């Protein structure tokens, strides 16, 4: 399109944008030309007067009669326009008095062999050829007009004297930081702009926008020259891994792995998960034929305590172009600690007994229970010296909020005070805890939850059930099966093998439920459902939804213990135990602590600035801003560094500090939060420092990045073979030592074409009218 424009209008649109349009002919010439034009127009309109042959005119011919004068007038107009000597006035640089910085990507990804323009086929080769200085090369063309300064960049840019200093081996390529550094380096010189030679692979953690704003403010246009192919022919890449930062020991870790590919549509590959060299899962992933990426949900058990580096990799395919982007690593801290769960039960029943028993051997779960045996007589179990003792249901937030999860059994809503119900909702929404609502004859709608704050917790729609309706009806013979969302969910994974787990559900003994739950709330997800001859729609068995920071789960059957005691279940079968262990671990996963600390990522390049963010809350989970927070960072060498964290002001309870991590290895952060000398709490976190090779991911030329840099800084994106255009663009830049230059426009091909077309048109019409 630009080429056509340039053919018709003599110059590229860019020059029209930069320049100013004017007529360079003397003023009287313009007046004379206008008068001549007017006469010609008058003459042309004389065609309209009736003359010879008027009698022969048909009605159709009469309609065309006005065209010849119009064509003639326009043709005269074009000639007049040319006589007025139209011109484009441009500010161009004075040769050799302005500077151009050529910023060259010196990173590893430039060694990719996907640049046809280079003799050796690599991106680096193409760059070296462009900068060789030989006659006709880009550097040569630039040097004809500009003083050229070469800079190489990886993490930042630095001056180089010649291309011999380029190694193309740097692990990082932070384009934004490098351009800002190059602009700073050449500050004070009359700079026409920067020329960026890169594949567009940006490994900077920060968004590019800030750097581009800086460049824009400095008035430094960046002209980007992309190298490499915009799309690899055959490549598989582990593009993204989303893993939890912390899990309980023995939990099933659920990780989302996004695999991208080009040229492997329809192929099935093995995605391996390794923990310290040991394969802990192997998932087969089939790429869609039409699409490029697929997201696989991978699950595996985290059985070893400590900071674990899980590696996700796809074996290299025989004809794959780039193998280094076939793996990614995620740092997951496997915690050996006991999550406290408060189980409040409204009546003695086997469901609660067997539930507690199922998790009693789980060292990471500590279920404290309170069961109502008789009116106002409770039996509390499993309280230890660290937990506050209370009778019945807690009345203070501090008592309830020290738990990570709450299980609410068969207890009617009328038992609770309004404050207690509100506190339970706040437990999920503000404290971020998990609330599990169990089915029972006094739970959900049957327990009068509708219309109370407790209704907010339920992921299923509740209905009003008058108290005088008596005992709710029990729906029996519920054959439970997974919903599509429940397949492969960690809470429903009753066997290590996902397929085996999916097939197991319908074979389990049927259960019964008092809850007639058939409708989900908006935003809720059902994982299990059941068919019942007593209800037309499928019954919701397991569903969950988010409530503020936390989550609420509904499990409607009241006798899952049959899966432990049933005569059809073998004694050694662990289905029931596994169900509740998984369920309760899921309940308390991602529940925030009072004091928390996180680095902004789990892995960094050596020399990166690590931002530590701590959140400080009091016992009632109210954010504390007036606290003294210090992070003690244990480096891989064993040396400890203390970094004070300051209140961020942006958010309540958030404290921020930075630290430069130079040593490769695993770092441990321990944050100590105090208020008026009193210890509020301690939190720990870990991060790793390693060569990440980030730029090898998405290794094809990233035109979107290059285009964005150019457009936001006022530059342009050009190709490797367009040195002339680059020089021209740089020459008309508004920066540097400038001189005005008028470029003629009267000889634009479009004017000639217009003239020919108009006169030709006139002639044709006249012939039609019999006037020629």
């Amino acid at each position, binding site marked *: 399109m630009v080429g056509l424009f340039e053919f018709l209008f003599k110059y590229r649109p860019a020059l029209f944008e930069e320049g100013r349009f004017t007529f360079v002919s003397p003023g009287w010439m313009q007046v004379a030309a206008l008068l001549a034009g007017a006469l010609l127009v008058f003459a042309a309109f004389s065609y309209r007067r009736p003359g010879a042959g008027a009698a022969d005119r048909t009605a159709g011919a009469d309609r065309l009669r006005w065209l010849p004068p119009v064509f003639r007038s326009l043709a005269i107009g074009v000639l007049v326009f040319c006589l007025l000597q139209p011109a484009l006035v441009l500010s161009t640089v004075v040769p050799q008095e302005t500077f151009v910085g050529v910023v060259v990507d010196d990173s590893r990804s430039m060694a990719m062999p996907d640049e046809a323009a280079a003799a050796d086929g690599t991106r680096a080769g193409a760059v070296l050829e462009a900068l060789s200085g030989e006659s006709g090369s880009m550097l040569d063309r630039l040097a004809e007009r500009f003083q050229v300064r070469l800079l190489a960049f990886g993490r930042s840019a630095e001056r180089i004297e010649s291309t011999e200093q380029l190694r193309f081996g740097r692990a990082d390529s932070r384009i934004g930081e490098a351009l800002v550094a190059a602009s700073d380096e050449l500050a004070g010189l009359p700079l026409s702009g920067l020329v960026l030679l890169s594949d567009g692979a940006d490994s900077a953690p920060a968004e590019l926008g800030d750097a581009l704003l800086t460049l824009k403010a400095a008035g430094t246009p960046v002209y980007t020259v992309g190298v490499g192919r915009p799309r690899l022919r055959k490549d598989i890449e582990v593009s993204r891994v989303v893993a939890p930062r912390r899990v309980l020991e023995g939990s099933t870790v659920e990780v989302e792995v996004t695999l991208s590919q080009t040229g492997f549509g329809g192929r099935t590959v093995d995605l391996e998960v390794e923990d310290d060299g040991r394969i802990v899962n192997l998932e087969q992933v089939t790429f869609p034929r039409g699409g490029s990426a697929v997201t696989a949900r991978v699950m595996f058990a985290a059985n070893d305590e400590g900071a674990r580096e899980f590696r996700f990799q796809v074996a290299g395919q025989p004809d794959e172009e780039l193998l280094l982007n076939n793996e990614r690593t995620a740092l997951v801290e496997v915690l050996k600690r006991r999550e406290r769960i408060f189980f409040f039960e409204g009546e*003695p*029943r086997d469901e*609660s007994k067997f539930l507690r*028993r199922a998790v009693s051997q789980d060292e990471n779960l500590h279920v404290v229970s309170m069961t109502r*045996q008789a009116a106002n007589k409770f039996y509390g179990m499993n309280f230890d010296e660290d937990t506050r003792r209370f009778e019945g249901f807690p009345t203070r937030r501090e008592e309830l909020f020290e738990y990570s999860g709450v299980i609410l059994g068969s207890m009617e809503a009328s038992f609770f005070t309004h404050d207690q119900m509100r506190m339970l909702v706040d437990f999920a929404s503000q404290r971020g805890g998990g609330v599990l609502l169990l089915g029972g*004859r006094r739970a959900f709608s049957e327990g009068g939850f509708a219309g109370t704050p407790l209704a907010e917790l339920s992921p299923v729609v509740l209905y009003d059930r008058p108290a005088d309706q008596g*005992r709710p009806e*029990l729906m029996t013979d519920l054959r439970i099966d997974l919903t599509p969302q429940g397949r492969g969910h960690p809470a429903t994974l009753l066997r290590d093998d996902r397929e085996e787990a999916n097939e197991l559900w319908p074979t389990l003994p049927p259960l019964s439920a008092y809850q007639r739950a058939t409708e989900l709330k908006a935003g809720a997800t059902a994982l299990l459902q059941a068919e019942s001859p007593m209800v037309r729609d499928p019954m919701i068995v397991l569903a969950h939804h988010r409530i503020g920071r936390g989550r609420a789960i509904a499990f409607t059957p009241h006798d899952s213990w049959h899966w*432990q005691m049933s*005569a059809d279940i073998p004694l050694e079968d662990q289905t029931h135990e596994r169900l509740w262990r998984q369920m309760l671990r899921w309940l308390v996963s991602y529940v925030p602590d009072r004091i928390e600390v996180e680095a902004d990522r789990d892995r960094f390049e050596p020399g990166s600035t690590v931002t530590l963010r701590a959140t400080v809350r009091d016992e009632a989970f109210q954010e504390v801003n007036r606290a003294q927070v210090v992070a003690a960072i244990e480096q891989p060498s064993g040396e400890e560094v203390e970094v004070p964290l300051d209140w961020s002001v942006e958010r309540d309870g958030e404290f921020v500090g930075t630290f430069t991590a130079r040593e490769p290895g695993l770092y441990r952060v321990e944050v100590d939060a105090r208020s008026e000398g009193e210890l509020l709490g301690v939190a720990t976190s870990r991060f790793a420092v390693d060569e990440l090779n980030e730029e090898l991911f998405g290794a094809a030329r990233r035109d979107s990045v290059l285009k964005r840099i150019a457009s936001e800084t006022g530059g342009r994106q050009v190709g490797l073979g367009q040195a002339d255009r680059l020089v021209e663009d740089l020459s008309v830049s508004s920066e540097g030592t400038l001189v005005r230059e008028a470029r003629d426009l009267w000889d634009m091909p479009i004017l000639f074409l217009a003239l020919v077309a108009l006169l030709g048109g006139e002639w044709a019409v006249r012939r039609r009218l019999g006037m020629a």
Partner: protein
Amino acid sequence: MRYDPVVPSRRTALVVLVAALLAGGAAALVARGAAPAATPQVGASDERRAFRGRHRGPLPPQAMRTFERYLYRPVHPDEVLREFYFTRLAYSGHMYRGFAGSWSIDYPKADRQFMVGLKRLLDQLDAYDYDHALPATDPELFRFPFLYSVEVGYMALSPPERDALRRYLLAGGFWVIDDFWGSWEWANLERELSLLLPEYPIVEIPLDHPIFHCFYDVEEIIQVPNVGQGRYGGPTWEQDGFTPHVRGIFDEDGRLMVVINWNTDLGDAWEWAEDEWYPVRFSHYAYQMGVNFVVYAMSH
């Protein structure tokens, strides 16, 4: 001088040994003779099967005669499923006082009367109001994790019963044994339990165990006499069972699977609690123990 079963004289020991051998031999003969009759009777009657819709498994043949007395009672209208059933184990056994069915002593009145008290004391418990007896071989037994047995001195479990009961207990069932007396009956139970759960020892349950404190605080083990001796103020003991014991069998996780009330008769104290001549302190204690057993069973 009071007879001390713990330190018997040498002659007494010899007599007991010979008597035990003779009794054992006789019991074995009876059991062998009874076994062939068992198979054809199993599940022969649809009406038997219809006993509240649950008796699908084979019935212990020795118990059949007694059991049938109650089998034909119509299904109770209160048929909704409850959270708790006071389930009595209908086990196989030796001849007892001329009829086979020692499991059914005090049945069903004791069971029903206990439920009356239990429902009043544990008013949040959704309990079935009536008696509920099942043989060990009935697969439905696994739907009722609380089990009660009496007169286990005459219990002689068949291999299928033993297998089912073992599975029941290890899966999470809870078994309360009551109303058997003296060293001879103890020896029988011990033998049965050694076949049932050979790897788990029988131990004395200490008084600080939660089973004595989960609802009522029981500070002392009282010997509860049978109704006859209780009403007429006779001795509280029977045979040579002078000292009451509460013993138990724990699984490897410390969960109490079996509670053995030896040399005491809680069942009679429940059964005759309304009798003006039966001492209230015995009923009082028996209900406390019974309630604690239920609370413990439904929470541990």
